[in-house]
């Protein structure tokens, strides 16, 4: 579904990604593990079209999308739940959700999807008229996920979805991702909770200093000594 080939990305002179290759198969959950600053968010933003890669290809359903503008990438069916949630604080919950459906592919079923999201996230239903900035962190994360799903994505990239949330709320977010995946959504997951993300991932990659150093199934990486030492503290 998504194939990244030899991706290079630079911020000025600093190289953020060097020859990154990975694949997300249809219906899979793929985890990316790595320390802060390893390039996880840069990778997601490059795929999303927010950052322009210097070299390499990003194939989505066979089409090279590297360098495409972000609204065009979104319209192909690649959604993103970004780090720090990135809701629109002064817009209401209702308006935030509608903003997820501004891309052409999602316009037709906007009303229908809105109902679906409010049914899926009852906490948001109680707060539709409230400014998104007044929601708790967990509620904002739910809103970010619901807003993304309003765009009818086929692949969603989750960037640190449980960061800053209470353990119970973090678990609820991960459960939501599992549920969405069961319904057929393909997921690319960057998560600080390495153990949890490897447990639910079919495939996983370790990203260090902008390069992939290890890859395999989630279970294999979970059992790998290097991963256990570096990321699980065992």
């Amino acid at each position, binding site marked *: 579904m998504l194939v990244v080939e030899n991706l290079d990305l630079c911020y000025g002179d600093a190289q953020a990604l060097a020859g990154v290759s990975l694949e997300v198969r249809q219906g899979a959950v793929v985890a990316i593990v790595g320390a802060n600053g390893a390039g996880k968010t840069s990778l997601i933003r490059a795929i999303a079209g927010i950052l322009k890669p210097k070299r390499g290809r990003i194939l989505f359903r066979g089409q090279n999308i590297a360098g495409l503008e*972000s609204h065009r990438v*979104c319209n192909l069916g690649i959604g993103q739940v*970004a780090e720090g949630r*990135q*809701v*629109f604080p002064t*817009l209401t919950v209702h*308006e935030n959700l509608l*903003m*997820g459906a501004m891309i052409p592919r999602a316009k037709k079923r906007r009303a229908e999807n809105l109902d679906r999201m409010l049914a899926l996230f009852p906490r948001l239903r109680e707060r539709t008229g409230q400014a998104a900035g007044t929601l708790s962190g967990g509620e904002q994360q739910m809103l970010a996920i619901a807003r993304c799903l309003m765009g009818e994505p086929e692949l969603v990239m989750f960037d640190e979805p449980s960061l800053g949330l209470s353990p119970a709320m973090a678990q609820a977010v991960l459960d939501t991702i599992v549920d969405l995946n069961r319904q057929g959504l393909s997921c690319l997951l960057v998560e600080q909770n390495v153990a949890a993300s490897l447990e639910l991932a079919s495939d996983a990659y370790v990203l260090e200093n902008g390069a992939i150093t290890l890859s395999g199934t989630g279970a294999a990486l979970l059992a790998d000594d290097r991963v256990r030492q570096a990321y699980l503290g065992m």
Partner: protein
Amino acid sequence: MSFSLYVEVLIQGVLTGLVYGLMALGLSVIFGVVRVVNFAHGEFAVLAMYAAFILFGLFHLDPIVASLPIAAAFFVVGYMLQRTVVQPFVTRPQHEQFILLVGLSIVIVNALLLTFGPESKHTDLSYSFDSYSLGAVLVDKARVYGAAAALVVTTALFAFFRYTLTGAAIRAAADNLTGAAVVGLDVKRLYAISFGVGLACVGAAGSIMMALTDMTPMLGPSLTLLAFTIVIVGGLGSMAGALFGGMLIGVAEALASVIASPSIKSMVSFSLLVLVLALRPQGLFGKAEA
């Protein structure tokens, strides 16, 4: 001086201030969304005044009525200008944006000078010297009509931002640019619309002003400064602030003109500016930077 004179001046100030406010609103919208300061704002107002003057000369079209077609035309101009000239500067340093727009303002002023000469122009409307009388208080008809037109345009603008999806998307892009990219909003298009809306405001305001005052090409820089003063007093990026700031400056200048002398009115508005910057730098309606 009599009490009724003060009431008269107060009302005139509010009415003129609404038109000023509409002009400043354009500056505020452009800055609030695109984060570019339109240093050619007053020059665009003068351009609109010439457009109104020409329409009046050709078709005897009232400048207040002409404000609508001129606003529409200015929207298109603003949209194209953002798409072609300004957009490449959005991510560049502020001093480069400054040079670009100051350059544009110089081009506008000199093109007008070249075409129309430096003479001051005005429109003779049938009601130019008419006024409504409320007891002892007299209010210019032209100012009442102008303020009403400014209010109509402003209300339409508020409704656009509040109730339309495109309006919400523009607010979203102003709110959180990363978030806008994440959900796939076409930010460049929204910027172009915002610049268009900003110029539509100044186009309508300039056209209305043609019914109220005399005009020369050299009026541009002082109108830019006026719009700045209003927007900074009201709070940069705040729509309500621009409108309130406009009325405040309008009243302050009108009162200063009668109490002291007309030549002192700029001093009063700049003093107000300095006072606001010293005591409440984010402006009366502005939010403090986090």
